[in-house]
């Protein structure tokens, strides 16, 4: 099994992810998932997209649409201990968006899990990362990718995981 783990490229990725996680902690506004509402504006600027906001009783959805057709929805909690924080992200577009930007401080954790999954099972299929503190799903096909990520413990009361999509 160990022979199927990280080669030089993957190791580089992990180091890079760690460096970015540090950077994200130093500048919270760049972190989307787990970040506060200002990080949504950072993401909007990053992709130069238009923003549309939808308010529900327990969260607000900020939808960012880029000219390329990529749509990102960021879910910000309205109450509870995660009030004002991004607890979930969903996206779709012709190609995956900047996952490093969207996952922020969770990127390193995600990349480690994704590389383990990528190295241990052959065969093309969706990436499904389910850990106690982080769920990430990425799938689709060239010209139509979709995915979502959420932090289970940050979900507002009464919100189902299926609501993040």
């Amino acid at each position, binding site marked *: *099994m160990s*022979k*199927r783990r990280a*080669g030089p*490229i*993957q190791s*580089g*990725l992990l180091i*890079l992810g760690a460096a970015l996680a540090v950077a994200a902690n130093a500048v919270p506004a760049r972190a989307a998932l787990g970040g506060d509402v200002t990080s949504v504006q950072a993401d909007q600027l*990053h*992709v*130069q*997209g238009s923003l549309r906001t939808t308010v529900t009783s327990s969260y607000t959805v900020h939808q960012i649409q*880029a000219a*390329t*057709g*990529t749509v990102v929805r960021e879910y910000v909690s309205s109450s509870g201990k995660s009030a004002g924080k991004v607890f979930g992200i969903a996206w*779709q*577009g*012709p*190609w*995956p*968006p*900047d*996952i*490093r*930007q969207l*996952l922020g401080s969770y*990127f390193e954790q*995600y*990349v480690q899990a*994704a*590389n383990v*999954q*990528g*190295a241990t*099972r*052959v*065969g*093309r*299929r*969706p*990436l*499904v990362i*389910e850990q106690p503190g982080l769920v990430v*799903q*990425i*799938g*689709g*096909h*060239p*010209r*139509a*990718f*979709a*995915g*979502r990520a959420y932090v289970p413990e940050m979900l507002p009361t009464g919100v189902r995981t*299926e609501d993040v*999509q």
Partner: protein
Amino acid sequence: MSSLRRFLAFILTFPVLVAFAFLTGCGGGSSSASNNTIVSSGNNVASISVNSGPTGNYANGGFVSITVCVPGTSSCQTVDDVLVDTGSSGLRILSSFSPGLPQQEASGDPVFECFPFESGYTWGPVQTADVEIAGEKASSVPVQLVGTNTAVPDGCLDFGLPSSNTLDSLGANGIFGVGLFAQDCGEYCVQVQTGNPNLYYQCASSPCQAIGESLAQQVPNPVTLFATDNNGVIIELPGVSGGEPSLSGSLVFGIGTQSNNALGAATVYTADSSGSFTTTYSGTPYSGSFIDSGSNGYFFPSTTIAECSDSSDAPGFYCPSTTENLSASNQGVNGSSGTVNFSVADASTLFDSNDYVFNDLGGPASGYFDWGLPFFYGRNVFTGIQSDSYPNGYWAY
């Protein structure tokens, strides 16, 4: 190879519990896999084999042999075990198989590509080859060579996908993308993206810099460059009952171009601009759905079917306690529709057998239905490349 065998032995250390459901040939007015006729001869017919692949552990992978040559010469390399993929466009082969192909350049610098698949990205130079398969030939085709010492640029890593740049991680010696589109990327890649990651790069020195790549320069679906038989492909595989070690069938080039590739009574389902149609499952329509020979199972959302545990040998698949007999309906952009019956069994049990062909392998996906290779068993599936009549291509079966 020996280490791969040991890996295989590892996943086979669980008790063999064969509990395959018998799939009766019931149709009920819907599309049901049974008794398809498979063409075996013709200059447009390549053999396709579903087996464990070059790494010895691939489930539901359909492979062909393809030959790449230095353009205009007889300096060629035949590459076996290239995965047939109707879900993407473009030929990608491991760089170790290159016969020394000429490099595509932009402003005098070598062009590289980062190509995202859902399970990982491929990174490597874009080079030019004559591509030969069966009696078909395409000249001076941009193809991607996978695996290189040139550092992966940050923009490629931003996709957040694992690396699929080695034999072990790719599970194949290459990917033969024979999908709906004439180019691998399309308009997205013509201009450099700001904010969203790019696919094409020029690599004069490290780090590589993102570039726009014209449609004419992009890695194309090689089928479009055949002299004839260039409007699509048919995958013809026999039906499967439960699991089998391997399976043989045909990859037929062209649709309605010869006596052996007529559309016949197949129903045409046209795709939207992203290469998707709508599949309705369990009452929910999923508009981003697709048919993809390069996916190795049925992948779809379910709130009721148990997922395999992360500690099992099948994480990311479904592991229902009893085989689920299910149905879903497909709807093309052109309005045509039809129901498909399918089954999903316990993937962990399937993987504990000596089989690599499973008609009942499935797993979770978020927000779409992916009809992978099991859908092709016992059913001739046409993939029509985009044209004036079908601007986004079509599937037919």
